[in-house]
């Protein structure tokens, strides 16, 4: 009896410091007229069940999709900055002919690191990170499916990224381009461990990406809020779903090829050795079978960002929901049929060339559908010119231009002229920065309030956008011209007689402007995180479920899991909207629903925090890296990996099910944490 009193008292203190939680609870559960004390108690128990306890150890153990998502985003953004700095150094080197800022060896390492960082350590991870953070919230559930896998995904990605950069600073940076064509990257022409490190990094990020994709697919299929039938899934989630499936089909190709490369280099196999029956073109086919879908893996989530932002800021549902979904799926399919357009210059049969020309042009159709639908949405809506929308308008301008130069390159004759020149550099930066980074910045502005509880500064945001937009076009537009004048890619310098100096100087100036733009964003984020305007639950009046909970959301996401009444969940919600009740609050219970109709199906208890994902990731990392140096690493590395996998999968004792730390002990812990925070 005494213990119970104690509990109630403690719970009160706890909820007192979580005011937002309490108010949201009241808002979303208006229909459930429960006593406020009871509710408070429930929230406290939910908080106790779902939150991470304080301390470094528990930080490492966290399986909360929001913590993992945020870590993932911040890490990926740091890699973006590193990759951007490398790009700036490259631009400085190229700003005038025969510049001697960098030698060929340094330049080659830097451009390889730039490409590898941007593709493998920034673009894919940041998109998946946005998915890991947002998808469970948008679907109205408490955590991602397979939360330990999500933690593992983050850790192995982090270890891979750190490894690559540590080796780069030790002058073991890869120097064969992010595409690592053999035989240049093969054992004969790339001695040392540089390429081995690169191909192991590929394994790290691919495993991370595959793990994240599986979680996203499972979450989307099984953890949707009741009522969110397939035709009500938000476009953002559709985008993540299509991306995840693409990852699952594309990544094995590159894992295979990087495994072949590793074997060729370390064991002496002959997959790519022409003289012994291998084939260097095999690498190109395998690599681009991943490499081209990769572009869409990066671009499709951006379609999700754009759809969300346009819908919210034009104050109407997206025009052509079905067309948008189908065009995303179509992009996902056609994206796998174009890889050969990276290889037109290798001399293919004409019939093959024609097929891939047609396929490449075809992918412009779904992209066209998307662009037209969004313009129609803006046309009939009432656009609000907030920073996220500005970034989306920048996306239109840049992406359409890049898309059109892509259509030109689908044509074999034109491709043979511009392939591997600066024209291509211009093109893919237009589609990737325009198509993915601009929407991503828009998404940062859009969801920052949800993640931190505070708005990003609007005025700085406009400057951020303007500098980035102008700087971008200044950097990359002249590159079209440089390519037409015959400047090849991946050259560390050029002769004065070529006449490429002026445009290169212009591009470098643009690069500096872009850098200032990105710096403004960082300033804005750092400043707003502490002093930004408090956001409230739904600052943009948006429609998706993540806006139904507090900002930032509590560890358990929703007080009561919502029930969805229409495609635009919050816009369609009535005042007497029902909610899900009956889930145990002392267990990590989530509601499983049916894949198509999202009718309640079952409940499931998600796993608790665990240190083992870190252990598996760490032992895998050590094994991978060690195996570059000695084959024995595989043997010795298998032991800790095996132990951690067993630890990960160790079943909970039966009687202990859902029984976490006793309430009073936990409260004590919590109070200490609060006290520390207060200091």
């Amino acid at each position, binding site marked *: 009896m005494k213990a119970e009193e104690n509990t109630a008292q403690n719970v009160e203190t706890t909820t007192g410091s979580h005011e937002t939680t309490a108010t949201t609870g009241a808002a979303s559960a208006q229909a459930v007229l429960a006593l406020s004390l009871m509710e408070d108690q429930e929230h406290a128990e939910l908080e106790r069940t779902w939150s991470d306890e304080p301390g470094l150890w528990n930080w490492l153990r966290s399986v909360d999709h929001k913590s993992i998502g945020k870590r993932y985003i911040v890490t990926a953004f740091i890699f973006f900055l590193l990759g951007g700095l490398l790009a700036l150094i490259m631009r400085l080197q190229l700003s005038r002919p025969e510049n001697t800022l960098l*030698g060929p*060896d340094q330049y080659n390492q830097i451009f390889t690191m730039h490409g590898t960082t941007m593709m493998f350590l920034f673009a894919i991870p940041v998109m998946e990170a946005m998915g890991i953070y947002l998808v469970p919230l948008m679907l109205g559930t408490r955590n991602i499916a397979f939360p330990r896998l999500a933690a593992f995904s983050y850790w192995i990605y982090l270890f891979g990224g750190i490894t690559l950069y540590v080796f780069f600073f030790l002058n073991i940076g890869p120097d064969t*381009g992010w595409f690592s*064509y053999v*035989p*240049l990257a093969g054992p*004969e*022409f790339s001695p040392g461990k540089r390429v081995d490190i690169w191909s192991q990094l590929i394994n790290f990020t691919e495993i991370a990406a595959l793990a994240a994709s599986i979680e996203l697919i499972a979450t989307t299929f099984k953890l949707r809020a009741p009522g969110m039938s397939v035709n009500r899934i938000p476009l953002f989630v559709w985008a993540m779903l299509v991306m995840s499936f693409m990852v699952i089909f594309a990544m094995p190709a590159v894992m295979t090829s990087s495994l072949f490369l590793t074997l060729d280099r370390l064991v002496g196999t002959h997959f790519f050795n*022409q003289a012994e029956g291998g084939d260097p*073109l095999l690498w190109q086919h395998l690599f681009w079978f991943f490499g081209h879908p990769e572009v869409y893996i990066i671009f499709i989530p951006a379609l999700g960002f754009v759809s969300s932002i346009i819908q919210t800021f034009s*104050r109407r*549902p997206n*025009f*052509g929901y079905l067309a948008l979904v189908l065009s995303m799926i179509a992009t996902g399919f056609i994206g796998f049929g174009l890889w050969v357009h990276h290889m037109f*210059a*290798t001399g293919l049969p*004409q019939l093959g060339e*024609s097929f891939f020309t*047609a396929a490449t*042009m075809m992918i*412009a*159709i779904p992209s*066209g559908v998307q662009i*037209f639908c969004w*313009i129609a949405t*803006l*046309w*009939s809506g*009432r*656009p*609000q*010119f907030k920073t996220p929308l500005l970034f989306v*308008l920048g996306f239109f*301008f840049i992406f*359409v231009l890049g898309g059109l*130069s892509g*259509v*030109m390159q*689908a*044509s074999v*004759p*034109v*491709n*043979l*002229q511009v392939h*591997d020149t600066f024209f291509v550099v211009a093109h893919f930066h237009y589609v990737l920065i325009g198509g993915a980074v601009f929407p991503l910045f828009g998404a940062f502005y859009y969801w920052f309030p949800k993640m931190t509880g505070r708005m990003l500064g609007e005025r700085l945001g406009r400057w951020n956008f*303007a500098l980035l937009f*102008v700087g971008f*076009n200044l950097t990359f537009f002249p590159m079209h*011209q440089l390519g037409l*004048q*015959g400047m*090849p890619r*991946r*050259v*560390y310098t*050029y002769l004065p007689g*070529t006449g490429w100096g002026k445009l290169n100087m212009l591009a470098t100036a643009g690069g500096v402007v872009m850098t200032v733009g990105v710096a403004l964003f960082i300033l804005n984020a750092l400043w707003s995180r502490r002093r930004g305007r408090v956001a409230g639950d739904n600052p*943009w*009046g948006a429609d998706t479920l993540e806006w139904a909970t507090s900002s930032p959301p509590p560890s358990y996401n929703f007080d009561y899991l919502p029930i969805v009444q229409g495609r635009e969940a919050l816009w369609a919600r009535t005042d007497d909207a029902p909610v899900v009740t009956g889930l145990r609050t002392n267990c990590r219970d989530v509601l499983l629903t049916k894949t198509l109709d999202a009718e309640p199906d079952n409940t499931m208890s998600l796993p608790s925090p665990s240190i083992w994902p870190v252990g598996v990731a760490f032992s895998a990392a050590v094994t991978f890296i060690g195996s570059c140096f000695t084959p024995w690493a595989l043997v010795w590395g298998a032991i800790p990996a095996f132990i951690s996998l067993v630890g990960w999968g160790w079943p909970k004792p039966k009687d202990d099910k859902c029984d976490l730390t006793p309430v009073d002990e936990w409260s004590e812990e919590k109070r200490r944490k609060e006290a520390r925070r207060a200091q």
Partner: protein
Amino acid sequence: MSAPARSGMSAHARRLVRDALRACALACYALTTAACTGSQSILNPAGPNAGNVSRLWWLMFYVCAAVFLLVIAFLAAALARTRRRTNKLTDAPDTEPDAGRERRMRGVVTGAVVVTVIILFVFLVASFTTSRSLYALSDPNNLRIKVNGQQWWWQVEYENDVASQTFKTANEIHIPVGQTVTLRLTSSDVIHSFWVPNLGGKRDLIPGHETTLWLKADKAGTYRGQCAEYCGLQHAHMAFVVVAEPVEQFNAWMEAQRRPAAPPANAEQQRGQQVFLASPCVMCHTIRGTDAGASVAPDLTHLASRQTIAAGMLPNTRGHLGGWVSNSQELKPGNRMPPIPLAPEDLQALLSYLESLK
């Protein structure tokens, strides 16, 4: 709330206009400069291949430019339309848009998609036609030249059914104006890509896969080409020139190239030859008519007749040659030629000899 938002929006509109203008200006700049520059430019064609491609390019350029402007115009109009409306995020969203307007918009969007498909189809046909024209130059009676890419230079071998009529040179390809030549492309190390923008598209040189390219120049001239596939440290300086010359001139050049090197004409050249044969030079280079017969580096039999040294990087002058022999690693770090420390008088003698190899 609404006032600043409106001003923000008009600021945005202004920015949009400004950007559009700037893009146009840049595009105009691109148009005017591209046409008249460069011995290494796609848009300054000197042969049928490059000509066909540049025609296709301009067709695509104008159509795509029109599409781009149209899309941006629609976007701008969509944004401008909303000026008259209220601007508040707190306003209730328009969850049930006007059905008639939706229907009309569906028509417009469908129309736009249909137009897209039509444009793509036109492009496709134009592309196929141009592709076929590129292959039309293929003919077994063409002059055959074998180009072998190596890190980081080009070995050029003029083939002939009579073995004694073949000869090798490096980094400089002479072709007769108005005749098609067939290039057989191979590589003995990594993948390179052969590209002369003024004459046509590129083709990769892949170890173990022979590829073929046809070139034809309509105008006499010197066209610069460069390796277009990243191939290692000195990818940036793996260039060459194509010299298109009238047939008689070309035949005379070929005759001259077939002859072995002229014997040294004076004592200094004699000494230079001795230096050449006694130094590391002889380990890699060939000079036909002497004992030097190694095949891993450029054939120097007629070195002095070439316009450039170091794979199109330096003009072929005595000064550059001297610097190159003494310490090529300073000029082109990573290239395969070791620094050759020679006594000054030996170096001068060697240079005199090399300069006599016309």
